[in-house]
């Protein structure tokens, strides 16, 4: 299908963009358009105004901050992040997650921040931002604020962004020294949205898990940590608490049936992927 009619403005500056968003019309932001355009083409969304930030070079950066964090501007593409040598070295979980997004043609235009602002429940990046404890910098004509990734993703296709706000940058702090990681997803075909996926980061101290972050996506309304499983892992060696982790997943996950998979299949996949991911992350701990 073709999009319903809308007005389009190419923003001249970040200030211009947020001024347009504050204008009271039903506006959507476009950068690479790889999340928004399917929504418009299928008429799942019919905004009155599309604000294009794609030409704002001031937001087109992938760089390391003075504190050693990775800063990704709103118009930086997924391909740009993958091509950045520091990302592979310092944020291998992020690099792996991004490599799982769509196909090269999609990543050439799709942005990191666009996927975060869209928050598809099966998308890789919200889970990645949560597991890596990212901070999101958000601007409006009223204020600039930061939101921890854990508070950003409130439901399927819903975020903490208000209609007048623009996500201008994602900040990924350096993972803890020696942290082990794993990112795994199951998709029917490579490049498809994940049926179920998991991101894990573990810190080992004195032979046990000192800190665990475990995020599942595709099994509920939005990517989220499974705190009870993290607590079961903390203070133990993962192989000793495998049964508890499985039990916590059974208790906490409540996936729905849909055309892609039954709830039962999603549960089974979540359990298998999580146990494998924990083992992989543990083996990668320094």
């Amino acid at each position: 299908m073709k999009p319903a009619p809308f007005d389009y403005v190419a923003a001249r500056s970040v200030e211009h963009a947020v001024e347009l968003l504050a204008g009271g019309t039903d506006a959507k932001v476009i950068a690479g358009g790889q999340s928004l355009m399917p929504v418009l083409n299928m008429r799942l969304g019919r905004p009155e105004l599309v604000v294009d930030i794609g030409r704002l070079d001031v937001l087109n950066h992938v760089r390391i901050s003075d504190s050693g964090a990775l800063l990704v501007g709103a118009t930086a593409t997924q391909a740009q992040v993958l091509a950045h040598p520091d990302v592979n070295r310092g944020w291998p979980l992020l690099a792996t997650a991004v490599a799982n997004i769509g196909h090269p043609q999609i990543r050439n235009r799709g942005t990191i921040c666009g996927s975060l602002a869209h928050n598809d429940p099966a998308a890789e990046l919200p889970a990645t931002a949560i597991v890596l404890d990212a901070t999101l910098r958000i601007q409006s004509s009223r204020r600039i604020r930061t939101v921890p990734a854990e508070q950003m993703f409130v439901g399927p296709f819903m975020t903490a962004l208000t209609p007048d706000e623009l996500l201008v940058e994602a900040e990924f702090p350096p993972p803890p020294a020696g942290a082990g990681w794993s990112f795994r997803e199951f998709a029917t075909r490579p490049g498809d949205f994940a049926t179920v996926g998991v991101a894990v980061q573990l810190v080992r101290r004195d032979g046990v898990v000192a800190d665990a972050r475990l995020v599942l996506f595709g099994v509920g309304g939005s990517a989220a940590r499974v705190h009870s499983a993290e607590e079961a892992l903390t203070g133990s060696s993962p192989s000793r608490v495998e049964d508890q982790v499985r039990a916590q997943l059974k208790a906490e996950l409540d996936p729905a049936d849909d055309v892609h998979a039954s709830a039962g299949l999603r549960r089974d996949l979540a359990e298998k992927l999580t146990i494998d991911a924990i083992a992989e992350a543990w083996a990668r701990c320094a």
Partner: protein
Amino acid sequence: MSFRGSEGQIHPTTPPLSEPSGWHDISLTVNGEPVSAQVESRLLLTDFLRHRLRLTGTHVGCEQGSCGACSVLLDGVAVRSCLTLAVQANGRDLRTVEGLAGPDEPLTALQQAFHEQHGMQCGFCTPGFLMSLAGLAEHGGTPSSDELDEHLAGNFCRCTGYVNIRKAARQAFGLPGPEEASRG
């Protein structure tokens, strides 16, 4: 107003002034030629190419970014033209399958490989495969066989032409052919 297709003809247009989505003047380069046009906000780049410039080599498959039949090169990079607004191409360099080799020019090595290996069945997907691979050739350095397969995964062939498509792609990139046992 008028705009020129890549073959140099002048196509007159009369944009309906009642169109509520707003119109925009855009100028871009299409297959090396400057093009100026007025486009409505919601016009997809695919439809601009096909309906306004009569460049019908770019095919419309799924209109949601899955199939890759609409792949074009935007500033030398392979993208989905169905997930790009025409107005977003303003000021950019665009190349379509028509730009690979002109009517009187020899085929490019990539096209020749598809010709020799018969890298198609019905041919609907072929322009997308060619433009994705053209983008890889310009920006991807020398891919491994696995990287080539991953790149091809972004394009769908629905009538099982993958075996010959993989052969053609490997020939074009100077890689050994897929093993006898592998299936498309």
